[in-house]
Every structure is written in structure tokens, then in C-alpha cells.
């Protein structure tokens, strides 16, 4: 069974440029999460989807971050414009609805210059 797929794995951009990350969850998983992980820290939730619905986006900086999960499968996280402080690893995870175990992708390491 394929795991959570994320692309790209690495991205280097200049500040004020836009950037987008893509995530394909495990087949059949209704719940999808986007996390931000700074160096030496644990993941911090940005947004959580149940199917197409964003059920928790309280930590998403909505002035520059946006996300979508069309058809309740793949998801895209976008930053526009990127700032220096956005340099981090962006993790996607998925889980079966109502269960507890999250399965993580390898993450996208973003560097903003």
C-alpha cells in the first residue's frame, strides 16, 4: 500500500514569491492534515480536513496561506507571498475518519531566501 505522497520534497524560493505544496493521502483516508515543523520542534497543525471540509483552520495564517482539498482526496497548500519566517518543513498526514493513528508523508522542506 502506498503511503502519503508529497511533492516537491525541497523548494527554494525568494521572499515575496508564491509557493505550493501537494499531498496525496493514503487511499480511503478521509482525514487530511497539514503541519508546519520548525527545526528542533514538533509539528504544529495548520489545517485539518474531513473529506472536503476544513474542520480546523484556526492556526492557518489566512492572510498569506490557503489550502484546498478538492473531491476530498488530494490537497494543495499555498503560500502567497512567502516570507523569510516561512522556511520550515511542511508535513502532510492522513488518517481514517474517527481513528487515531496519523500516517505522515516525508514532508516538503521550504527555504525562503
Amino acid at each position: 500500500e502506498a503511503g502519503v505522497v508529497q511533492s516537491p520534497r525541497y523548494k527554494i524560493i525568494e521572499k515575496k514569491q508564491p509557493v505550493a505544496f501537494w499531498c496525496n493521502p493514503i487511499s480511503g483516508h478521509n482525514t487530511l492534515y497539514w503541519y508546519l515543523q520548525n527545526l528542533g520542534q514538533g509539528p504544529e497543525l495548520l489545517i485539518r480536513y474531513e473529506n472536503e471540509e476544513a474542520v480546523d483552520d484556526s492556526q492557518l495564517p489566512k492572510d498569506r496561506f490557503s489550502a484546498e482539498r478538492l473531491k476530498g482526496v488530494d490537497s494543495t497548500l499555498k503560500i502567497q507571498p512567502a516570507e523569510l519566517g516561512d522556511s520550515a518543513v511542511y508535513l502532510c498526514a492522513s488518517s481514517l475518519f474517527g481513528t487515531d493513528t496519523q500516517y505522515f508523508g516525508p514532508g516538503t522542506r521550504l527555504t525562503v531566501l
Partner: protein
Amino acid sequence: SQQGEEDPQALSIQEGENATMNCSYKTSINNLQWYRQNSGRGLVHLILIRSNEREKHSGRLRVTLDTSKKSSSLLITASRAADTASYFCATERNGGYQKVTFGTGTKLQVIP
């Protein structure tokens, strides 16, 4: 914001020794999970313990939970070099929908 805090922040041991990591949290929880993260990789789920459980085993892993002290410990017995990784606890808060919050992590180094 981080709900849990792991202790110690870093731990270095010899192969074959046991490694113990602790997690403290602030609010009432439904369950607590431990995850492992190898350098440059995503997190991997290790074990889940529910609030009505006190101890759980999985292979070389032993997890305890003390809800009165709001703390949990992860014991890795007979450590191997491959156990070198960062370990995170994640808590699901009691009440409301399923919200999981990760701690700050313990970086374990097992020296061959």
C-alpha cells in the same frame, strides 16, 4: 502551541542500553501517542495509550501513562543504532473533536 513537553531534550546512550523519555502535558486527554522521526523523514506512529490505560507494550517499547500527573514515559529496551531518531508525544484533548497536539520532542542518539 505545543501541548506536550518531552524530557530530556536530547539523550545519548550506548547500544544495548535502555532509553527513557518523558512527556508532560497540560490538559485532560483522551489518548496519548508516541511517534518517531528519523532525520529528514516524516513521523512514524509507534504506540497509542488511552486515558483509561496505565501501561502498554509493543515489542521493545513500553509506554506508561499517569493521568493524575499528566505525564507519560516511553521506554525503549535494548536500544539499537537504528533507534537513533527524534521521539514525539502527541496528545488528543478531551472534549470536542479529535484534536491532536505534538510535543517538542526528544532527540535520541544510540552509539554503536
